[in-house]
């Protein structure tokens, strides 16, 4: 047995993870990925006794398990790479290289991930990053960013083009790096860590904070009651509706369709205003807390939410019908920015972008938590992998989420009278927490030391995988279609850069 199977949010003693030598570790994990029901949710290194302990987590969608295994290596060893066998590992190995200076003999491209402040090679700087180049006199390069035209986060895009046609896009991120993973260890109070979780990506507050609190409660051996589970599930689904709606608005902007931009944009407003009505913050900061709920969801809020959705839905359907029947809209969305099912699988794409390319991957179904356990969620799948498929997934997921919220509202949780003590984290433990945010799979992983203090904290935003999907999507497209392709993924810079 080369691995141990755990459930989502199940605490495990660190020593129970089977350890093997690196060759067997590699063989085992890359072989697991030959089965398309498996994918890598986390793979990282932890310094231990002068060595690096590598821990790999492979999730199995059918058995709802995560297979954990580990190996110990020296920093100076030159290792054969996992990526040689499966490209989905590429970003994890780049991160290992960047953080610890571990070298791989056959990794395709050990490109810097985010120029973390504690990177191994301090001479490698974001200012002097050498972009991939082509010497051809017929091709030219276009550099965009880090600061973009609109109000969005920074990142650099370097295109190699033949006339108007994109042959290659290289994306360089890291501008947003704030050292979050390290801060999780340095900031000692639970409230500080919760605030950090809320700030990983401000568009995914419910997603990342749910991942954090579920993990923390698992470490503490705390069972969340119905009210807490309700709050998290409702917040996740509201966040999904809000961001998806905003994205439809932004996609309309990028194709110059003003009516869609205005109407989808205004439909997002009551959703985020509802968050404020409920918890005092339009993006749900302050709402989700480990072992505690400050904002009981009462009947009155239930009625307000139901009425709001009753108004939202017909308006939403109407503007969808109008927008997606316009030939001028469809011609910009269909067959633009295609990611095939094979490509999505090979790079380990997750979330709604993967589902738009025919993948079934959705944590709400495969590793359910909170209220999803009883929801019987069926992922929305589209097959063309183009911008229009990503639009259609959003549209269908909005309608699906409205349905889920209506179901949730039928059984409002009783306000918990007796407050259970949260307790403190168990020693020498590891927990992996998976959450399906609106963008896709979020993975948090924590390891505690002998005293139960946090020893390692690892965050994986869905964008980590999906930025590569964007680079593949724009190949052979017109460069003028880049904005709409980019928006159709709407990936996180801060979630990637941490």
């Amino acid at each position, binding site marked *: 047995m080369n691995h141990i199977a755990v459930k989502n949010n199940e605490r495990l003693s660190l020593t129970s993870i089977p350890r093997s030598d690196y060759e067997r570790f590699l063989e085992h994990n890359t072989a697991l990925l030959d089965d398309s029901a498996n994918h890598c949710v986390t793979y990282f290194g932890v310094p231990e006794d002068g060595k690096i302990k590598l821990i790999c987590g492979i999730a199995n969608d059918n058995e709802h398990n995560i297979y954990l295994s580990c190996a110990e290596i020296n920093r100076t060893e030159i290792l054969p790479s996992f990526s040689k066998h499966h490209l989905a590992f590429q970003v994890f190995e780049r991160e290992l290289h960047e953080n610890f200076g571990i070298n791989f003999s056959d990794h395709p491209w050990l490109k810097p991930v985010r*120029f*973390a*402040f*504690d990177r191994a090679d301090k001479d490698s700087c974001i*200012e002097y990053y050498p972009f991939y180049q082509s010497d051809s006199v017929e091709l030219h390069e276009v550099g965009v960013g*880090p*600061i973009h*035209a*609109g*109000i*969005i*986060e*920074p990142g650099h895009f370097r295109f190699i083009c033949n006339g108007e046609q994109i042959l290659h896009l290289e994306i360089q991120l*890291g*501008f*947003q*790096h*704030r*050292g*979050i993973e*390290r*801060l999780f260890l340095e*900031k000692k*109070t639970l*409230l*500080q860590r*919760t*605030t*950090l979780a809320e*700030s*990983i*990506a*401000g*568009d995914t*507050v419910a997603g990342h904070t749910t991942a954090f609190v579920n993990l923390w409660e698992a470490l503490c051996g705390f069972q969340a009651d119905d009210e807490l589970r309700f709050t998290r599930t409702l917040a996740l689904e509201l966040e999904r509706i809000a961001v998806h709606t*905003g994205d439809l608005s932004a996609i309309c902007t990028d194709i110059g369709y003003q*009516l869609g931009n205005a*109407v989808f*944009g*205004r439909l997002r*407003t009551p959703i985020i*205003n509802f968050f*404020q*009505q*409920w*918890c*005092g*913050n*339009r*993006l749900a*900061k*302050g709402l989700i807390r480990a072992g505690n709920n*400050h904002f009981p969801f009462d009947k009155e809020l239930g009625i307000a939410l139901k009425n709001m959705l009753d108004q939202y839905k017909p*308006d939403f359907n109407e*503007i969808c019908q*109008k927008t997606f029947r316009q030939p001028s809209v469809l011609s910009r969305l269909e067959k633009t920015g295609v990611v095939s099912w094979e490509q999505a699988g090979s790079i380990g794409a997750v979330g709604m972008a993967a589902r738009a390319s025919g993948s079934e991957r959705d944590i709400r179904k495969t590793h359910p938590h909170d209220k999803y356990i009883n929801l019987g969620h069926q992922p929305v799948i589209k097959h063309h992998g183009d911008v229009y498929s990503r639009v259609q997934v959003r549209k269908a997921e909005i309608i699906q989420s409205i349905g889920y919220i209506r179901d949730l509202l039928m059984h409002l949780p009783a306000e918990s009278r007796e407050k259970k003590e949260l307790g403190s984290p168990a020693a020498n433990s590891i927990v992996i927490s998976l959450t399906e945010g609106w963008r896709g799979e979020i993975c948090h992983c924590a390891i505690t030391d002998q005293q139960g203090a946090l020893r390692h904290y690892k965050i994986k935003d869905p964008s980590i995988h999906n930025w590569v999907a964007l680079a593949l999507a724009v190949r052979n497209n017109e460069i003028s279609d880049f904005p709409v392709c980019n928006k159709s993924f709407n990936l*996180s*810079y*801060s979630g990637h*850069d941490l």
Partner: protein
Amino acid sequence: MFNTLKILFHHGRQSIPNVATAELPGIFRGRPVITNEKIDTAALVKLCPTGAIGSSPISIDLGKCTFCGECAFAFPNKITFTKDYKLATNSLERLIVTEGTNQPVLLDASLIRSEISKYFSGSLKLRQVSAGGDNSCEMELNACGNVNFDMGRFGIEFVASPRHADGIVITGPLSENMALPLQICYDAIPEPKIIILAGTDAISGGIFSGSPALNRHFLNQYKIDLYVPGNPIHPLTFINGVLDLIRTNPRHT
């Protein structure tokens, strides 16, 4: 065509008529009020995640506060958050709310450069730079221009090029990796130009304060024209703050 008109018609006018007097629905954590009630000061100071609470007298620094509201839950008789969203000011001292007072947050007229109202009162074009921002303030700045808040009606707009801008709006705690791009962008804006810090992360570093991945040196070089507290900023906080800065009006003291 007919359908388009129908849709426009039944959505009706969506903009908030008066951005200075609009009431927010439900709860909102705006300007805090601190009473003179005696409490366990050490416990209160300790619970704040960003060190925003000071002692003797007890105070909250809006430039550090993440508006998590936890202090008010722990000491409900001591601290309450009002729905007053007018939190922006141009001096760091005025960001500090002390116990026993219940005063609006105002701009200090003596600190407003005369060229600001001369050039920008009717038209202000801003370039936004996110320097480690988590995309929450960025989304709210975008919302300032949407059909609900409609900041464009006051001549305030975000523009793509720093060459077209009259000032810069910075979000995020100022990451080291954005230090150079931020400086280049600021240098590209023609004089006279203003600097606005939007959100707690930008004003003080917020929860990231002290992180070795930041480089806040940029802020030591220039006078900051407006601090807009919030996590994220509320669009009405931003719009009112900017209007107070560029228009000579009674909210100055």
